[in-house]
């Protein structure tokens, strides 16, 4: 039995082999999301590669976060198919860990750093089950990995923005997932946290997991990522950073909002730096 997404792709005349789709940690076909009457994402196709670091890049309001949220079912899809490792996203939840935008929670909530990380492990617990020593150890290990072991007992609102972001990443790490989806992980964090987070993400890739991040800092795209999806409501371009992250494509994505001189600095002139 073929997957509906495959049939759709075949009908559209796009040549996507089943193997590609089955391997892809996240593939969307014809995704449209709309708030009211205005599409935020329109008929978007994307196939992210496995065991790689991918960036979703585009201007403000281009639908980057919306696309991620729609793929995860946080906001409803108007149309489109989403597969995770070749299966419908609803059936692959246990393979996904999501790090939402930092602004989305109430910082006065009575919860400590380690409590937040433990929330990543709740799915392993039955309704009656207790949090056991091994869960607490796993949570501590995740906090340690992001350099937050000393802050385990701190109330979440008493941490700096960067530290809060690290705790959210630790919660995702505790889930031990195959696909990590991050929404603007570097927004509003300090330089030390950005380094700590990128180190963790690179180690995830080394462990053969897949990382997809909404990213807003064009200057670091070639350094951090292997694969990039340029979107502005529609897909502008997608592929390896070396091929796709060009001045031409960026101009198409951002329109007049990027000065040409600025573009020249962002895009490596000849051979792109390897990470």
């Amino acid at each position, binding site marked *: 039995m073929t997957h509906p997404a495959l049939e759709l792709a075949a009908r559209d005349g796009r040549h996507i082999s089943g193997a590609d789709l089955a391997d892809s940690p996240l593939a969307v076909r014809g995704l449209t999301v709309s708030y009211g009457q205005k599409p935020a994402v329109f008929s978007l196709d994307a196939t992210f590669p496995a065991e790689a670091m991918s960036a979703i890049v585009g201007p403000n309001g281009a639908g980057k976060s919306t696309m991620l*949220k729609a793929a*995860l*079912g*946080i906001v409803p899809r108007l149309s489109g198919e989403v597969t995770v490792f070749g299966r419908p996203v*609803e059936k692959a*939840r*246990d393979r*996904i860990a*999501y790090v*939402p935008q930092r602004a*989305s*929670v*109430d910082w006065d*909530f*009575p*919860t*400590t750093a380690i*409590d*937040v990380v433990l*929330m*990543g492990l*709740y*799915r392993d*617990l039955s*309704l*009656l089950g207790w949090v056991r020593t091994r869960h607490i150890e796993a949570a501590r290990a995740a906090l340690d990995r992001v350099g937050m072991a000393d802050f385990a007992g701190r*109330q979440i609102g008493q941490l700096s923005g960067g530290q809060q972001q690290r705790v959210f990443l630790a*919660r995702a790490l505790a*889930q031990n997932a195959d696909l990590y*989806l991050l929404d603007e992980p570097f927004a509003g964090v*300090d*330089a*030390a946290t950005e380094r700590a987070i990128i180190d963790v993400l690179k180690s995830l890739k080394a462990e053969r997991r897949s990382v997809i991040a909404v990213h807003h800092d064009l200057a670091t795209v070639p350094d951090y990522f292997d694969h990039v999806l340029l979107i502005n409501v529609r897909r502008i371009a997608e592929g390896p950073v070396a091929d796709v992250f060009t001045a031409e494509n960026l101009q198409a994505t951002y329109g007049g909002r990027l000065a040409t001189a600025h573009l020249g600095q962002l895009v490596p002139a000849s051979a792109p730096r390897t990470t």
Partner: protein
Amino acid sequence: MSGLLDALLLSAGYNAALVAIGAALLGFAAGAAGTFLFLRKRALVSDAVAHATLPGVALAFIAMVAAGASGRDLLGLLAGSALSATLGLLAVGWITRTTRLSEDAAIGAVLSVFFGFGVVLLTVIQTMSAGRQAGLESFLLGSTAGMLFADAAVIAVGGAMTVAATYLLRRPMTVVAFDPDYARAAGYDVARIDLAMMGLVMAVTVIGLKVVGLILIVAMLIIPAVTGRFWTERSEHVLWIASLTGAASGYVGAAISATAPALPTGPIIVLVATGFFVVSLFLAPVRGVAAALVRHRRFQHRVHLRQGLLALARAEPIHDRFTLATLARAGLIRPDGVATEAGRAQAAKAARDEHRWDAARRIHQDTALTGRYDGLTPIEAVFTADEIAEFDRLIEGPRIVAASEPVGAR
């Protein structure tokens, strides 16, 4: 007074003991369910739900009388109240979803319409000839006088079931309350968990009608939760403290009410709960008013001490009385305003640290470190010994305050 003691010790008679235990269980359930309502910031919705029970109670009474019964069967009345409360809850959701009205407007509309309709129905019931309508208005403010064993049993069993359900759902409800987007991505059915939470709230409201009454039940859902919040930064502990203070309020309130049957039970229970709240508001460590005051005074003291020391080091006159008093109390200046030996030494250290910070800013471009300068953080807490030695080389060693001139303004 001995009557109250008897009631508290469950020796004021079988019925009073039963009521006290039932009220304690209700308080426990209300504290537990209310914690999640509070964490999810839906407290006002429960007020709409509570007021929406009244037409259900009245209609159930009318229906039972029409069927030839006395109309006083508690289970029947509660079933009716649950039905109209559900309608009220759905109405709030429907208005919020389909119109541009915000939830608070929807709550106001539903609350007043349902409650008004209920009052009209109660008036109609007063004029009915059949049935025993006396005492129906006790559902407004709660009354335990003349409560039957069957009524108390309904409350106790309902409370226990609500507590059990809250316990089972505590983790999903916590995740949803803290971070609904994450919960959805992790595969939690947020809409259903929210519905279950409102179901628990409705259960507490319905079984609390007899004891606390529909006007004040929202207080039993919220006051214990905010009381718990004062004492801890962990939701699991808020849950326990809220449940226990809720239970204690129900128990003590019912006992007081047993000794003064003329008073409605609901307000007494709520007043006891408010007592716990006020004590927590003032005395809770960290989040309480007293603790905040102490913290502020300590901070003020540190600021004045530091400013005074820097003034001493620069041999500037000090005019601020509080600064002078702080320095004198710490033994750093004599009553006539002249710096003591210890005062000069500490002033020198304070001045040296200021110079070190200046040097640190020249050497370190990393704002993450130099950004921690706030005038109060000791430099040793930010930089290592060898780094500080480097600053000292730049500033040519510690400086000593000039001779013993008085610094107090005269």
